[in-house]
């Protein structure tokens, strides 16, 4: 979907391109926020969330996860720049006509500056000034030598290669300072707000959150500043900046986690509730459906479906205007398939729990009073299932992010046109065995992925402790 916006915004006319996944990610983040806010009305749930955020670990990991989500959101506002008009060619056609670049950019690209537009010829090491491979060079005096050529962008602002280390030091300071300044501004505003109406949020570990936020912003500030001068994490085979690619992979990782889990939720909740509450033939049908799905090896079903969809895309190229839309469609299909194949566990849990709850006295009493099924489900059953839903959401998320990498390796993952950690790790397995080995692609993807998954895992542990009645009983 494309929307044209005339001159005035961003100083040039820009074609806002909305990918389906963009719409979904904003919708989903909104839905999750709404869900959590609606839970806050329940004093019991509020107490549980308070328990999560009154630990330092809970607050810090939450801030890290939110940083990832924020980057993913910023990376989900896409546009295509207008191409500069060519005066000589304009004679034959309407000069008002503006053509747009086939390159789809996002707001994240703007924030990162030139980082994505510094292509080298091929591999280069982190902070390198020269290429990784020797090439035949033509010296100014006409002599041909075989040597490492200078990089086109990495460190090209240096007049003298010996200034290298002092240049890094000099440029690091303002980078970190910029990041810290923005962080301090936000922290200050938040602190002011807390002072005014913060009585209800006392004894939460705000300080840990602030420190984490300041560290993230300082690191980001440094990375953006240095990334525009050097290739902080080197470049990959095609000469793209590895740091840029890894950062672009955040959107894919976050999206696949949220989207696939969110697709499972409505299916699992509806079917699980229906089976557990109404019993009888509905229960039989639901059980049959999920047993059938469970019996199929998950990876196989996913691989087969993705392959089929791939064939369909190849046969219907007219549906997609730019390459990224095709990649986006494939990506959505992947999320959808992942969702369809992974609702069964949650459904089974919810069914069992509903069976148990619907036998309880107060539900029986509600029946006797003639309360409608819908009201009973809404008032008595659904709230008692919320802990299972929340726990399984956070648990599934990290599993899906990891699954993406494996799927990409198998060749049924994200389209290569879309930056993803899975594709990077997949490439890295051959790069590492080169002589000398290339390790920075693997490291870049690994580090960002590891931080996200680790934060989510640690956070989900805390959520589990706070919400799972079993662990609550034990600690009491």
């Amino acid at each position: 979907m494309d929307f044209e916006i005339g001159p005035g915004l961003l100083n040039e006319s820009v074609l806002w391109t909305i990918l389906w996944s963009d719409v979904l990610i904003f919708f989903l983040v909104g839905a999750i926020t709404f869900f959590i806010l609606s839970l806050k009305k329940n004093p019991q749930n509020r107490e549980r969330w308070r328990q999560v955020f009154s630990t330092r670990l809970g607050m810090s990991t939450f801030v890290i996860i939110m940083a990832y989500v924020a980057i993913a959101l910023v990376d989900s506002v896409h546009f295509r720049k207008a191409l500069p008009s060519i005066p000589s060619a304009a004679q034959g056609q309407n000069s008002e006509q503006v053509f747009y670049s086939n390159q789809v950019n996002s707001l994240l690209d703007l924030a990162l500056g030139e980082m994505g537009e510094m292509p080298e010829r091929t591999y280069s090491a982190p902070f390198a000034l020269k290429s990784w491979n020797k090439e035949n060079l033509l010296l100014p005096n006409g002599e041909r030598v075989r040597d490492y050529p200078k990089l086109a962008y990495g460190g090209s602002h240096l007049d003298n290669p010996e200034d290298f280390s002092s240049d890094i030091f000099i440029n690091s300071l303002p980078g970190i300072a910029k990041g810290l300044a923005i962080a301090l501004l936000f922290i200050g505003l938040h602190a002011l707000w807390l002072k005014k109406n913060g009585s209800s949020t006392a004894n939460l570990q705000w300080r840990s959150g602030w420190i984490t936020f300041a560290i993230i912003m300082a690191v980001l500030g440094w990375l953006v500043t240095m990334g525009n001068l050097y290739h902080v994490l080197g470049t990959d085979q095609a000469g793209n900046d590895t740091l840029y690619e890894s950062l672009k992979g955040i959107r894919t990782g976050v999206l696949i986690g949220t989207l696939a889990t969110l697709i499972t939720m409505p299916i699992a909740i509806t079917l699980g509730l229906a089976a557990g509450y109404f019993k009888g033939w509905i229960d039989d049908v639901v059980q049959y459906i999920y047993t059938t799905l469970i019996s199929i090896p998950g990876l196989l079903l996913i691989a087969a479906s993705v392959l089929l969809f791939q064939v369909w895309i190849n046969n219907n190229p007219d549906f997609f205007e730019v390459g990224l839309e095709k990649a986006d469609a494939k990506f959505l299909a992947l999320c959808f398939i992942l969702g369809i194949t992974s609702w069964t566990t949650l459904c089974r849990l919810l069914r069992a729990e509903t069976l148990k709850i619907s036998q309880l006295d107060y539900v029986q009493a509600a029946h006797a009073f003639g309360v409608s099924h819908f009201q009973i489900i809404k008032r008595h059953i659904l709230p008692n299932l919320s802990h299972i839903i929340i726990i399984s959401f956070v648990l599934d998320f990290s599993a899906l992010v990891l699954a993406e990498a494996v799927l990409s390796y198998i060749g049924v993952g994200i389209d290569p046109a879309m930056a993803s950690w899975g594709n990077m790790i997949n490439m890295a397995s051959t790069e590492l065995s080169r002589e000398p080995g290339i390790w920075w692609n693997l490291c870049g993807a690994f580090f960002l992925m590891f931080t996200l998954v680790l934060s989510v895992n640690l956070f989900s542990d805390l959520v589990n402790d706070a919400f799972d009645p079993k662990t609550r009983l034990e600690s009491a």
Partner: protein
Amino acid sequence: MLTYIIRRLFYAIPILIGVNLLTFVLFFIVNTPEDMARAHLGDKYVTEQAIQDWIADKGYDQPLFFNGAADGFNRLTETVFFNKSVKLFAFDFGASDEGRNIQSDVVDRMGPSLALALPTFLIGIWVNITVALMVLMFRGSRLDRFAVGVFVTLMSVSYLFYIIIGQHFMAKISRLVPVSGFNDGIDGWRFLILPILIGTIAGIGAGSRWYRSLFIEVSGQDFARTARAKGVSEAGVLFRHILPNAMLPILTGVVVVIPTLFMGSLVMESFFSIPGLGSYLLDAIRAQDFAIVRAMVFLGSVLYIIGLILTDISYTWADPRVRLS
């Protein structure tokens, strides 16, 4: 007992029919045989005749469910559905789109898959339970919290990363073992030791954590508390009271996995070029050989259902209170 097993086997039939229908619909509603032929023969420079030949050759030229042109019983049997899907029930896998006999391929490749998966599985369980028990001895202490932290960290690392790094350092840098390959005889252990090691290490995080929480749950029950109150040592409680009583949930997790061992590990086998079922499947997926994928999906489901039945049976000898009826 026997009647129970027979009844369970009968229950399996509708599920297998469901699996079969689902895969069939997946393969034939979304894409026509022409699409499949094109995917196989290459996209651009293929003649219409070649496509039709391919379709006729592979038997995709029949109607999907009902053949009006045939007579009698053949109306149902001379269809794509019967030839490609129903025959799977008789374990007649037919030929792959490449023309190889799938059944003999599967039989050939089962051995290497098991040679890799079985040791990984057994060593994995042993290591995970040992680690979990060791951690449990220090329950509540700083060491315990540290160990849980390590488990979560190990869990957060991608499986691919374990393989890539393990292969790089163990095989390429230190040259302790061959990088990849497989050998049928006793001599083949050299090729298997690295994948088994990596598979075990990659599983420690999630596995040990799971066993730890399992043991904690059991240890909260009355008999464990009574044993402690009687003055039984912590180790005694662990090994004589908690471990035997945790057998049931351990079995639930373990027996169900056994049949999937035949399927091998998709990623591991292809990384170490072990000619097992996992890499067979992966190659089929990459070559878009739908006949193989369909047969393997069916086989996988059969094995899974067998695993479920085995789990139930194993309950009876793990816990005498369980009666199957």
